[in-house]
């Protein structure tokens, strides 16, 4: 079954960031028209473990589970509140602790919330480059919601367009990039290495 993972960095309860994330996942499910294995990762609950990971170098407990869910995801929906003209530190920290290549080829729908519409280009200037760097495939429509947008039918149109774009990308555009997605240790050693080959490659000046 398709694995869709929602990651959001909303801090309050209830959270408008969570609200936007829920709308985006509902629109994606509707566009897919089939059952999906849906996981929601609330970064607020992982804040301490994220700080620990920065210092110790390894994820523990629920954070380790969340990292593994994201690594295995077929598509991601990521939503952050805007803090100081960018994604929040909590949001960035989660993507900082992922192994390089974790998101290679993964379709990603990006969203952001803020108190004012003046922050709307954060999606294009901060989130899109971040996920481009991580070699994810970001859908064309990024969804921004200021407080007043929650009363505007245009938000719902953008949400549905973005959800449909993510659904359309699932399993289509990402295959070559996903081929070198970061592997778990088990996957790395599923076919054992060959040391003679490592020796040859070590001394190959083209390597």
């Amino acid at each position, binding site marked *: 079954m398709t694995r869709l993972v929602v990651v959001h960095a909303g801090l309050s309860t209830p959270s408008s960031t969570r609200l936007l994330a829920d709308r985006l996942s509902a629109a994606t499910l509707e566009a897919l028209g089939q059952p999906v294995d849906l996981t929601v990762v609330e970064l607020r609950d992982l804040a301490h473990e994220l*700080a*620990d990971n*920065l*210092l*110790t*170098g*390894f994820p*523990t407990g629920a954070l380790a589970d969340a990292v593994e869910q994201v690594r295995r995801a077929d598509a991601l929906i990521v939503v952050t509140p805007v803090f100081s003209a960018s994604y929040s530190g909590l949001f960035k920290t989660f993507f900082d602790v992922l192994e390089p290549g974790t998101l290679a080829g993964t379709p990603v729908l990006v969203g952001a919330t803020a108190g004012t519409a003046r922050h709307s280009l954060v999606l294009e200037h901060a989130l899109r480059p971040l996920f481009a760097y991580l070699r994810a495939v970001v859908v064309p429509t990024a969804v921004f919601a200021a407080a007043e947008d929650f009363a505007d039918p245009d938000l719902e149109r953008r949400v549905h367009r973005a959800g449909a774009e993510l659904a359309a990308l699932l399993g289509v555009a990402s295959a070559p990039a996903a081929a070198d997605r970061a592997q778990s*240790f*088990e996957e*790395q*050693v599923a076919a*054992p*290495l060959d*040391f003679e080959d*490592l*020796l040859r*490659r*070590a*001394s*190959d*000046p083209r*390597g």
Partner: protein
Amino acid sequence: MQLGIFTVGDVTTDPTTGRTPTEHERIKATVAIAKKAEEIGLDVFATGEHHNPPFIASAPTTTLAYIGAQTERIILSTATTLITTTDPVLIAENYAKLQHLTDGRVDLMMGRGNTGPVYPWFGKDIRQGLNLAVENYALLHRLWREDVVDWEGRFRTPLQGFTSTPRPLDGVAPFVWHGSIRSPEIAEQAAYYGDGFFHNHIFWPASHTQRMVAYYRQRFEHYGHGTADQAIVGLGGQFFMRRDSQDAVNEFRPYFDNAPVYGHGPALEDFTEATPLTVGSPQQVLERTLSFRDYVGHYQRQLFLIDHAGLPLKTVLEQLDLLGEILPDLRAGFAEGRPAHVPDAPTHASLVAAAGGAHDSTVHAVDDVTGRRAEEVSA
């Protein structure tokens, strides 16, 4: 089963007093700790290698030779030797010399280091770290086993007719361990050569150590060095003990909370649960240590980190006294249920025996038989 300690040689402020030892004090303390390790009956003392403050762990063979001169029994080792940025010719020379001076009480653990700038400081490219480890060790392995080496590789200047001196003591190379926390390539390297594999163990969850060791064991068997359970495995460990476990927690907490690696991060309780760190009574340290076998199998070497994070020398020596008290029980526990076919870690004596006895391997510049000099022979 070999039991010992390893140090990274950090010069760290004692958070309870605000005092930072001088380099001189820390270097002398390292020697005192090593001598104490022999006194309480440990088998191994290993030092790390760093080339930057706040460490005093550069020039490891100088330290080990000085300790070797003041001890009689303990094996002197490294944790780790930087195979990436150190010329393998110098490693071959330095450790063969140490082998002679200490009558064979030497082995080494290869590692890639954890300080990025060491690569450029020594003229290397960090992106080639793994390749450097593979090629450099391939050369080191030959330098200790072949009297005359012709070599051309990618990372150092070629060698023609080169003899690394002194030749290894009794014609037997020092035993080598390969240390890596997370690179299966290094476990593969250890397995290929039939060398030991050491997992640092202390900063990562047990489940990860278990996977790395299992991979090494499987590949050791694949390369025909024995069965998987005969592979040579070493683990790191970390403890702080007092007779009363609550005293241990109270005394160690400020050192943990301010430790250079994980300080100001996870709570002591969470970290002791996630990693092998044990803070408590001698009985708790004993039981926790013996439980490592549950996930790596019967193994050959257990090293503890006990002198880091600003712990004063007096405290470290007290830790060793307590370790000495549980040492007989640790040895008895590790011997329990250990199948006869599981080997001990190789030592100089066992390697000499396996080679059919000691033979002097001196390479003379003048041919003993014909009396001709090397230049005349090659002319």
